[in-house]
């Protein structure tokens, strides 16, 4: 069994980045200077992942205000409006308001990939996009089209994003559908999400692809639908609600997907109990019989202070190494 690691998503801003963004918003700093600061910060974040031995790294997305914002800002017919709580976090995103089907005026990922993929070597650069079902259900739809039609339009743009990012050199594509882990998510939503995620990952060529669910554990009937997704991997949080998560994985497995386990808790700041987490990983490996395991953080790392995000990156590396050692000892569980 192969075991690799990647942080789930974006990183918090260092003091330097916060200041630069603030000064930029006040007109005290030019765009070029902001770009330089963000570029340096991203390079450091990539470096911390490389030195921790992570296989797929992210650029940190430190210039994103929330997961939807860069896309909203690159698309026509959608704007960011009022604030709303982002799942169960004390963090708020701006609600996207769609007035028509969105059209892209520029690409979010391809330029970033061209800039950061070379820095990520020998690891691969992972790109992350918000899933169309989560995107739609967390937006206000004033288009006159149904939510399903809006989600389809979003999926189409995301597929273009992915295609261009892969051409630019991205190694992994992750589609985030945290809404499907919500207790109120329905099987129909999951079926739609799977269909749309399939259309997005179809643009990923030979790159590794994943569907990520987090902030909670999906209900059984939702997860059943998700198991049909054509992404290579399915990513689940297994430590926020360990009982429910392990029960789900032990009863349903990952089908023929590689399983990505959110093991390093990125909403707490203490050091994770690495040895205990190794046990959890081995338990999952035994019960689900996955041939490939990804190890990740429970959520994006941007909900904790910057210093702790670096510590968690290091712990993710240590944990993954220990799992690899144990898998070896156990003769490929």
């Amino acid at each position, binding site marked *: 069994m192969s075991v690799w690691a990647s942080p789930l998503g974006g990183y918090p801003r260092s*003091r330097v980045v916060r200041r630069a963004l603030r000064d930029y918003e006040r007109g005290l700093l030019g765009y070029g200077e902001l770009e330089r600061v963000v570029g340096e910060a991203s390079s450091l974040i990539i470096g911390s992942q490389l030195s921790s031995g992570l296989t797929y790294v992210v650029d940190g997305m430190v210039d994103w205000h929330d997961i939807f914002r860069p896309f909203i800002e690159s698309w026509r017919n959608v704007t960011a409006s009022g604030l709303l709580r982002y799942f169960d976090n004390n963090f708020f995103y701006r609600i996207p308001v769609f007035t028509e089907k969105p059209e892209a005026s520029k690409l979010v990922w391809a330029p970033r990939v061209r800039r950061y993929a070379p820095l990520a070597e020998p690891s691969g650069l992972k790109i992350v996009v918000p899933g169309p079902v989560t995107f739609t259900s967390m937006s206000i739809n004033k288009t006159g089209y149904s939510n399903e039609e809006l989600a389809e339009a979003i999926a189409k743009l995301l597929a273009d994003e992915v295609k261009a990012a892969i051409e630019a050199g991205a190694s992994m594509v992750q589609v985030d559908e945290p809404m499907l882990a919500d*207790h*109120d998510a329905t099987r129909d939503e999951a079926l739609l999400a799977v269909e749309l995620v399939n259309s997005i990952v179809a643009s990923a060529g030979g790159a590794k692809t994943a569907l990520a669910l987090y902030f909670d554990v999906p209900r059984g009937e939702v997860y059943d639908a998700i198991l049909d997704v054509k992404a290579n991997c399915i990513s689940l949080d297994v430590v926020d609600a360990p009982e429910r998560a392990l029960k789900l994985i032990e009863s349903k497995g990952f089908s023929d997907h590689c399983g990505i386990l959110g093991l390093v808790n990125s909403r707490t700041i203490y050091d994770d109990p690495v040895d205990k987490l190794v046990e959890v990983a081995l338990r999952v490996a035994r019960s689900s019989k996955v041939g490939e395991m990804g190890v990740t953080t429970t959520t994006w790392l941007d909900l904790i202070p910057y210093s702790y995000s670096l510590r968690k990156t290091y712990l993710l590396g240590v944990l993954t190494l220990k799992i690899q050692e144990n898998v070896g000892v156990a003769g490929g569980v």
Partner: protein
Amino acid sequence: MGYSVPRKFPTTVVGSYPKMPSALEAIKRRRSGEISESEFNEMVKVAVRDVVEDHLWAGVDIISDGEQAREDMVVYFAERFKGYSVGDWVRVFDNEYFRKPVVTGRVEWLRPITVELWEYASSISAGRPVKGILTGPYTMIEWSFDLHYRDRRELILDLAKAIRREVEELVRRGARYIQIDEPALSTRPWREDAELLKEALDIIFKGLEAKRIVHICFGRLERILPYILDYPVDQFDLEMKNSNFRLLPYLKEYGYNKEIGFGVVDVHSFQVESVKEIKEAIDKLMKTDIVSPEKAYIDPDCGLKRLPRDIAKAKLKNMVEAARQAREEW
């Protein structure tokens, strides 16, 4: 203390009110270390006076100090309980950050926190009762980091004991309404979480000679509802208007039998609800036949802190008038 709260549809507030400039200035100066805690409270009193004047002008029956001293509902208490340290920067939205408190030792109550401003508000309230309002233990643990306990139950129970001490101080000085704010509860509507909070509330409210209120707002209230009906409280204060009163049928279904703090004013909207609109909301509650008018407290959905002052004031005024009309009818 000659004011008598109406028997039917008493009006109240959830707590926070737009920050007055004097309060903002006091918070800034305290943060930079220019003024002591007692000088801080003195400065904030100027702001509390403005809030109380607005509440009286609108005719609210059970008022608050507008939480003028509280920069943030969690940080305010974390800075004053033992066991908390100043945290590192965490994003709230966009590029706005706050220092999320960290529990680094055993949490303990040290000295009265909210009492001085509560007493001050009571002294100028023309006899109207002032709510004692505290951030609940569940919200305190959810919205801060923990490096000491690594066990949510242990931490929440110690927080409950600390909050209990503050509650005792308020009640000893005559507070008749104690409200515990738990906005975080609806974000994680699980039975385990609700049961954890129940244990904590048992500590906070046990044997208390005051009205025991828990405020919950936004999120999936209908999911949390079945788990909280046996809480040791007299009243749940609930956000209703923003979610278009969709909770009402659930209250009916679950056989709700406590008092209700009925949110009739949307705190996220700058549009002032008309008297007619609010009166219709009260009628709706009455027609659902869940509580009697004596058990229905009329208030906004949540704190009014994010509204401009003139809008907050106008909303309260209309709310009071609607309650007055409802008293004639029901």
